[in-house]
């Protein structure tokens, strides 16, 4: 106590400055998060306990966990949507990471116009998702699609991509993979360049060939980036909405195909909230989806963590 009294005002101010300024500097993030992240989350939780029409807030009724009970135990379409989400998660995340690793590895070599190729990787990611999806939907057209045309050279073709479960998932996954592979490849490439070349030189002296070096040195050293990419891809895919929504537009867009064969959980939320106007129910889906996203992200973290680092 005695010590503090001897400080001058300027000294005291500087002390407080050191203590409090950091909080001031980081506060914008937390303020913005509070307004645009935390508050909507809490409000969604509140709405999810109501029976509430989207455009009639005054008519809301409190019904406790009724929406959750209906969703979890009496709604096969919700589980159908969750199943589609998981299927698309597997179909997108795994190829994305593998392709990205391969592409990063190729770009990490000396080749002509390397910078151009590297910049090209990010192009799919910065194009509008709506435009990309509409173009892909044309490519996957049943009667005049480019892909069926190419398939017809090999005696195939005439696949009704939207109609089938596997075919529609393949088409949607290809859009996501096309869009995000470059992004992950650049992250991998950046950390590949941080791997000291002496490690590869030592491996070469030990007689390890290209692919051996890739799997034994590069991949293990990229472990943190692979974990990061997998978690990012996972959370992104759990929220997959635009691709399935625009894959078969028209009046039935929100149902994700004639038999909901490609309706993701996010699309089901959209259908309930914005075509059925059931705001309470869609809020409950949102919260369950948030929890499921955390679970799946945790799971993919656990799986990717097992990459060996010795």
């Amino acid at each position: 106590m005695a010590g503090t009294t001897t400080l001058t005002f300027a000294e005291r101010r500087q002390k407080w400055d050191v203590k409090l300024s950091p909080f001031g500097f980081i506060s914008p993030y937390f303020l913005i998060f509070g307004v645009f992240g935390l508050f909507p989350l809490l409000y969604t939780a509140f709405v999810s306990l109501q029976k509430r029409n989207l455009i009639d807030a005054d008519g809301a009724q409190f019904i406790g966990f009724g929406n959750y009970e209906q969703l979890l135990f009496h709604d096969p379409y919700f589980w159908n949507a969750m199943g589609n989400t998981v299927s698309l998660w597997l179909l997108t995340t795994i190829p994305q990471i593998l392709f990205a690793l391969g592409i990063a590895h190729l770009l990490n070599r000396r080749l002509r116009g390397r910078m151009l190729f590297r910049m090209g990787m990010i192009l799919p990611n910065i194009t509008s998702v709506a435009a990309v999806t509409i173009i892909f939907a044309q490519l996957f057209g049943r009667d005049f699609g480019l892909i069926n045309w190419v398939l017809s050279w090999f005696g195939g073709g005439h696949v009704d991509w939207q109609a089938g479960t596997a075919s529609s998932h393949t088409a949607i996954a290809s859009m996501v993979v096309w869009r995000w592979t470059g992004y992950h490849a650049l992250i991998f490439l950046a950390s590949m360049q941080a791997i000291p070349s002496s490690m590869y030189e030592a491996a070469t002296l030990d007689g390890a060939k290209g692919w051996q070096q890739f799997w034994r040195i590069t991949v293990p050293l990229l472990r943190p980036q692979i974990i990061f990419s997998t978690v990012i891809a996972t959370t992104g895919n759990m929220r997959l909405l635009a691709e399935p929504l625009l894959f078969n537009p028209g009046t039935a867009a929100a149902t994700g195909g004639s038999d909901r064969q490609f309706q993701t959980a996010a699309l089901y939320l959209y259908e309930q909230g914005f075509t059925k106007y059931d705001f309470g129910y869609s809020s409950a889906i949102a919260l369950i989806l948030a929890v499921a996203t955390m679970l799946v992200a945790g799971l993919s973290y656990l799986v990717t963590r097992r990459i060996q680092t010795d």
Partner: protein
Amino acid sequence: MRPKTTTRRIRLLAGVGAALVALTALSGCGNSGAAGGKVKLSLGLFGNFGYTDLIKEYQAAHPDIEITERTAAYSDHHKNLAAHLATGAGAADVEAIDTGYVAQFKATPDKFVDLNTVGGDKLKDRWLGWKWAASLAKGGQQIGYGTDVGGLAICYRRDLFEQAQLPTDRAAVSALWPTWQAFFETGKRFQAKAPNGVKFMDGGPTVLNAIVGQAPQGYYDQTDKLIVDSNPALRQGWDLVVDAVKANLSAGLLYSTPQWNTGFTQGQFATVTCPAWMMTKIKDQAPDTAGKWDIASVPGGGGNWGGSYLTVPKQGKHTKEAAELAAWLTAPEQQAKVFTGKGLLPSAPSLYDDPKITGYTNPFFSGAPVGKLFTDAAKKLNPQYQGPKAGDVQTEFGNAMQRVEQGKQDGPAAWQQLVGDVAKIK
């Protein structure tokens, strides 16, 4: 040296931050309307309402008003409107609503200006009685002025009919199908000699919509109860269309999808159910097919599919001016211009005997006397009551028919699932 650069950087960041804040504040001002001394009105539409020239005309007569059109796809438009009403911001000053959705929106009349309080009650006689009633809320508030009505006809490709050795003259074609059974029988005759890859009709859901639109009762009864499983007309229509699909008459395209649009340009089908607004759609989508199309009457008498309303959401800043604009755009004179310009059938019965309208022929459709054809259809039209979620039920019908077309289910199984899906619509 070090601390100095840090403070400089912080200053820079603060500057950028301040600039951003200023920008957001500025962009917030953009909507406040009266900025340049002009009242800015926005018009939220879907599809082609044919208003572009009318807006120029209105602005010329009202120099203090500036109007911007914004157009979205059919279902996006209605979803956006719902979201904007829910959040209390973002809706256009005048918002169009389709027949399939109007019952849903009139359930919350307090979100809209009651047009009866701004002179609508005096304009009432402009419209067909049922058109006026369909947008009238239970408490007597009028949420929208009627634009067009659907009416029904069949658009057909003369060239393809000729290749399939069917009559091409519109009177002879109309005589081919007094009933829907006869329509599908004609389809079988067409299919037997059709050019390679061409089907008789675009898709089951489009035809089914027309049949449903002709039934005395549709998806709902007057008390807003869903009667899909107990209304015999729906099941009969369903079975007819399923048989036609099984007989391979359908190109299997769902209306309003990109594939369906491509079908027009590629000539994948020879007929399409044609409410009046469909004419604009075909013309916009496949301008190269001019002169190949013609229009015949619809089997089974009158019926309605589609037609819209102009509403004024209460959240707008200039609701008075917006209501005036909506009243002007839907006035009989303007409806007449929209009909001769774009082919949207007026909902103002005073026009149905107007020689300007009845004498109107459309060159795109081989000079078909569409004025006479559609006004006759409108006079015969039996108005059908539209329940609260008619749009959503129609979507489920389309999905169910598509399951049959895609070979995923047979008719009875698809119907059974349809009944279950419809029961979930609350």
